[in-house]
């Protein structure tokens, strides 16, 4: 589904990613862990097509297509979803307007008819239950006045609405208490299917107690320095990132 080969990325001349290789097959859950500043969020943003990153070399294909040829909205419509580390507030734009526009853009892309207001509200009710999203929140403007946890829930709620092929969860667990963490994880797990893949980016392993990864990668200084099964996450939890740093000469 997703294939990253030797990806090198700089921001304002500073190298952040220094040769990433990653294969994500349909149905797989990959966890990318690493200390702060290792380039995790950069990878997420580059996948989603955010501006301000210079791709110095390497390639990414998504379902056989060159990702760099696609605009951010095209990537989204083709099924790449990024759950933002810091979801953005858009004052005055009602959640319903935003979500309906988003869902209908995806439908248009697939050649489906746009949902009517009634159909959309029905879909929204259904998905709201999944992440225990408060109706009071969906009546507000996009993310406006949401707490940190509510914002993260809102991201998973949108993911449930859009049913993406590839979900990238960028530090979705940060700022969540244990109850919210469970709700978020349940949402993610409920969406799991053989055709859908997930990349979970996290600093801590606790989210991985609830979202069970098939593969765990450790990102350090812009490179994947270690890849293994789920047990790697537990090992990291136990030993911290120090041993990774030592093994890699720092």
């Amino acid at each position: 589904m997703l294939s990253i080969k030797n990806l090198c990325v700089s921001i304002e001349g500073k190298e952040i990613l220094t040769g990433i290789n990653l294969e994500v097959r349909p149905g797989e859950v990959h966890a990318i862990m690493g200390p702060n500043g290792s380039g995790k969020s950069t990878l997420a943003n580059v996948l989603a097509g955010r501006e301000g990153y210079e791709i110095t070399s390497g390639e990414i294909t998504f379902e056989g297509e060159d990702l760099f040829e696609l605009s951010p909205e095209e990537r989204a419509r083709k099924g790449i979803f990024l759950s933002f580390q810091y979801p953005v507030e858009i004052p005055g734009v009602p959640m319903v307007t935003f979500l309906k526009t988003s869902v209908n853009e995806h439908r248009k892309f697939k050649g489906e008819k746009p949902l009517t207001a009634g159909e959309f509200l029905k879909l929204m009710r259904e998905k709201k239950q999944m992440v225990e999203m408060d109706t009071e929140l969906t009546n507000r403007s996009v993310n406006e006045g949401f707490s940190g946890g509510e914002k993260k829930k809102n991201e998973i709620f949108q993911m449930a609405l859009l049913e993406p092929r590839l979900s990238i969860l960028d530090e979705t667990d940060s700022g969540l208490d244990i109850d919210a963490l469970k709700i978020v994880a349940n949402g993610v797990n409920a969406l799991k299917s053989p055709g859908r893949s997930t990349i979970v980016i996290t600093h801590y392993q606790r989210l991985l107690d609830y979202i069970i990864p098939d593969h765990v990668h450790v990102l350090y200084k812009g490179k994947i320095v270690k890849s293994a099964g789920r047990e790697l996450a537990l090992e990291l939890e136990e030993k911290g990132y120090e041993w990774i740093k030592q093994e890699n000469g720092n």
Partner: protein
Amino acid sequence: MKDQDKVLKEVTQGEYKYGFYTDIETDIIAKGLNETVIRTIWEKKKEPEFMLEFRLNAYRKWLKMKMPDWAYLKIPAIDFQEISYYAAPRKKPKYESLDEVDPELIDTFNKLGIPLEEQMHLAGVAVDAVMDSVSVKTTFKETLAEKGIIFCSFSEALQEHPDLVRKYLSMAVPVGDNYFAALNSAVFSDGSFCYIPRGVRCPMELSTYFRINAANTGQFERTLIIADEGSYVSYLEGCTAPMRDENQLHAAVVEIIALGHAEVKYSTVQNWYPGDKNGKGGIYNFVTKRGICRGKSSKISWTQVETGSAITWKYPSCILLGDNSVGEFYSVALTNNHQQADTGTKMIHIGRNTKSTIVSKGISAGVSNNSYRGLVKVMPRALNARNFSQCDSLLMGDRCGAHTFPYIEVGNKSSVVEHEATTSKIGEDQIFYCNQRGISTEDAIGMIVNGYAREVLNKLPMEFAVEAQKLLAISLEGSVG
């Protein structure tokens, strides 16, 4: 068939009424402005005696005045002797079919969802007397007449209701109020007149669109709205379709008189041609709009969405004379490319317990300049007056400007005046967030800007609000990325 015949008859009679114009279709008086020209206008329009005095008085005042230079605008020199001050409305349509019209204009019409027939009307294409639309207009007139509401062209009002006009004309905007108001008073060609009788609630939004011949009111338009005691009216001016006009200078005057317990809601969508991307052409729009709350507990509310014109100079204001009267000003002013806007309001508190609210949302893009200029003045006798002002500016890109000039004068100690202001840039992270949800950058900007302006758009009548939303998005097309 009988109904149709009736309608047809009315249409033909309607045309006949303006016969003295259409006869002289090629009649444009020579360029230039002097007392003879003013006399000629007065004669051609067959106005009552007092109007000659009114016009000449205004002209003499205008001669002694100077073009205002205090606004944050670069105004090219205007040669007032190079303008022809009277032209008969065009009888013949400009185009025979829509195919001859600028495709870009048609494209915009379609984006705004304007019905085909209205498109033709706006672009100046010959329209057959389509039964539907004609009967709508007729039903409309009949409903108003039943309630005793007068809604007609200014010329018609001068013929049929000269006493009403005489009593209220220049009550809110004295002829010598400012340079452009004086000019308008001297030479105005036509406009709208509206009178709502005592205790009557106008059952529909009054829109100039329904007034026959509204398209040709010319560059010096005059509007007078009188709401008698306890009455209510909501008045809509303009339309969202881009209006082109061969006259570059526009100087309109709008006056509103609200008597005791009356309420007037005046909504404008202004989308005159703003000029091209390089700042060539475009309308200069110098407008004087003022309402006077004469009676107790009266209310005047201005809502405007300004997206057009190369230069906008406009301050819809309220004089709160009656005790407990209320003035409101809600504005969205959008400038793109080389547009300049200096707009805002004046709230003059004279009566006790008077209240005013100002919400101004400026949006600047391209290399445009957008200024809010407002005055809140509380006279010493206006005890317990209240004002709340909020002036926000949104910048798109880093080559445009937003400026705020609030003036506050409070003459007593029991009044409370609050002012809030913010300036923000449209966030790239907001746009990216939308992109990531499959929404294109242009749609995202439209959505974000409409969210920003929502508080004001909500004040517009429903149908107008939907059109205004689309208009904001279209006006910003190509301004980012």
